[in-house]
């Protein structure tokens, strides 16, 4: 089977073309990194079946990050290249094209985002462009499907012009000549969107826009999450699932051990989903009834910001600030991802260039960036006492993130790599690929979280039944009670927090703690050991020595900050 490679710059609609050609639904995203793991599918040219591979977006064939290295490696494995080019930004895109033409692989060009050229006052002589480059050029509109049939038919005419290798200056000179001959730009008035593009990166206005956008994003996440719980999940759990569980409970009446493990303890004669702590009660309710709604809301909004093209702007705005943490602006993107789940966040650190930067970002994420599951539990636990306590925990974590970053910058060797990123134009999100990406992330959460939560609840119940937990609590009680001021049973939350942070925090609920103890407990648990999934990825990404260092930093920070909080909080 012939192998066709889709190659092009980031943000040119490559992934949309891929999903249209193959029917496989993949991620389209405005920043390089989410497609490091490339996508593969199949399609037909005439009657012949072909394999299509979506190569990670790259600006040149001289790789500057891991993602681009992958792209270059994959080139040698293809039979034909479809070079996807953004017609609204032909000049920059042709740099990669000229490099591809120096390779010995047949090539056709998809001149994508073709409809936009009219709005932006750009005229391109497609026929002349094709003659000058020596390969077929097909105007396409991936979203509407325009030109894709012609693109597939043109594969038969794919050519290898075999340009001699050129220097950087020669390449740009040649591109200048081509552009001068094939492209005309008419003056056009700035659209409202273009004005907003400028405002969102303005030295003053940009920060105002950022505060508004982030504020609005979190408000919408809360609104979606709370609405899902109030109107869909709670009614289902209370009216459908509860009677079902109660009936099971009655059948188990004679077997108290089994009842305790499956249903848990009854609170006021009935099941309390948050406190009963049985496999089928709390074990099911926490991941699905409390955490999933916020995970859904978070990933939907993050996907929207990604696809619109806002995140690179945020990275640029925060570059100066991030330098104080030994990082550059781009590292804000993995950190933001961490607010959903730390696992994909750690994977996203691969787009960062230096090892030092990856270490700092990964350590900061696993200590001070709470995932959606953890946040849902913190809010669930503290909000009844007042939102100011929730805000307090967030502020503590934010200060730790900043302070620790500043300290790590001083004590790690290396330089901060320079920021160099394209600021893409805003684009309306393409709903189909947005929803598919979102579905993948939400299902990923369910399949990863639900089994681990249930196992975690099971382990707690078995330990409890065997009396092991009492022994551990006795052993560690000086640390927990004296240093942190928590009841000694809270140590179980710390241990179970290693399986999943959300059940760890959830275990604090039945302990009847004061608000101060809850704040200390939530903050300390958030900073302490990452959950096991995060730990595994941390280990894979950083290696043994750096993971050990990260863990040491983690334990010291959690105990130090927890002890300090216990000493200074006055309420």
């Amino acid at each position: 089977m012939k192998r066709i490679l889709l190659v092009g710059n980031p943000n040119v609609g490559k992934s949309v073309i891929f999903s249209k050609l193959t029917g496989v639904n993949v991620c389209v995203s405005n920043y390089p990194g989410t497609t490091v793991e490339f996508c593969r599918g199949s399609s037909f040219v005439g009657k012949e079946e072909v394999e299509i591979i979506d190569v990670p977006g790259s600006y040149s064939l001289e790789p500057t990050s891991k993602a681009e290295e992958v792209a270059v490696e994959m080139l040698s494995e293809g039979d034909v290249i479809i070079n996807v080019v953004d017609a609204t930004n032909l000049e920059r895109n042709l740099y990669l094209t000229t490099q591809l033409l120096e390779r010995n692989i047949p090539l056709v060009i998809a001149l994508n985002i073709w409809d936009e050229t009219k709005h932006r006052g750009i005229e391109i002589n497609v026929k002349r462009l094709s003659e000058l480059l020596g390969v077929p050029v097909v105007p396409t509109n991936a979203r509407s499907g325009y030109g894709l049939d012609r693109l597939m038919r043109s594969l038969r005419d794919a050519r290898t012009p075999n340009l001699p290798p050129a220097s950087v200056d020669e390449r740009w000179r040649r591109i200048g000549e081509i552009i001068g001959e094939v492209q005309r730009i008419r003056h056009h008035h700035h659209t409202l969107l273009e004005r907003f593009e400028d405002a969102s990166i303005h030295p003053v206005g940009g920060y105002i826009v950022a505060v508004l956008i982030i504020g609005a994003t979190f408000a919408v996440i809360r609104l979606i999450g709370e609405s899902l719980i109030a109107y869909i999940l709670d009614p289902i759990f209370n009216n459908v699932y509860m009677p079902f569980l109660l009936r099971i409970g009655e059948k188990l009446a004679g077997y108290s051990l089994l009842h305790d493990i499956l249903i848990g303890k009854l609170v006021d004669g009935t099941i309390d989903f948050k406190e009963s702590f049985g496999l089928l009660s709390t074990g099911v309710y926490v991941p699905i009834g409390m955490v999933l709604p916020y995970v859904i809301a978070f990933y939907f909004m993050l996907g929207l910001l990604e696809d619109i093209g806002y995140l690179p702007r945020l990275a640029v705005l925060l570059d100066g600030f991030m330098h104080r943490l030994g990082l550059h602006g781009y590292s804000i993107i993995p950190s933001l991802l961490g607010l959903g789940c730390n696992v994909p966040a750690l994977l996203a650190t691969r787009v960062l260039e230096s090892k030092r930067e990856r270490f700092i970002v990964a350590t900061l994420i696993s200590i001070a960036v709470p995932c959606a599951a953890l946040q849902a539990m913190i809010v669930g636990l503290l909000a009844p006492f007042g939102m100011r306590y929730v805000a307090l925990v967030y502020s503590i974590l934010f200060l730790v993130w900043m302070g620790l970053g500043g300290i790590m910058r001083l004590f790690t060797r290396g330089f901060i790599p320079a920021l160099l990123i394209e600021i893409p134009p805003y684009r309306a999100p393409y709903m189909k690929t947005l929803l598919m990406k979102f579905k993948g992330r939400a299902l990923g959460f369910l399949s990863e979280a639900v089994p681990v939560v249930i196992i975690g609840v099971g382990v707690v119940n078995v330990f409890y039944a065997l009396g092991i937990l009492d022994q551990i609590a006795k052993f560690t009680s000086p640390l927990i009670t004296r240093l942190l001021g928590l009841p000694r049973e809270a140590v179980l939350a710390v241990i179970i927090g290693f399986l999943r942070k959300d059940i760890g925090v959830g275990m604090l609920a039945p302990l009847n703690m004061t608000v101060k103890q809850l704040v200390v407990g939530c903050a300390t648990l958030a900073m302490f050991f990452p959950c096991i999934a995060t730990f595994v990825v941390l280990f894979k990404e950083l290696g043994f020595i750096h993971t050990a260092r990260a863990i040491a930093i983690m334990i010291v920070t959690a105990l130090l900050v927890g002890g300090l909080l216990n000493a200074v909080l006055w309420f």
Partner: protein
Amino acid sequence: MSVTLDRMTKGAKGKVVSIAGGRGATLKLAAQGIAPGMLIEKVGHLRGGPILVKVGRSQVAIGKGLASKVVVRVIPE
């Protein structure tokens, strides 16, 4: 008049003369269209942070350190 990109005034246009950096920096910049002979326009400068330039039809943000390696001959208005 030649200046480095970080010292160029906002709104000024110019032609890139040379990149006073290593091979890595040169190639990275070239991929974004910042190479000798190219026309660029400085559109902004964020406090303590990156410099914004327009190259052809794209906008690029360049960290301050990297921008100080790009030598530009300013075109008088």
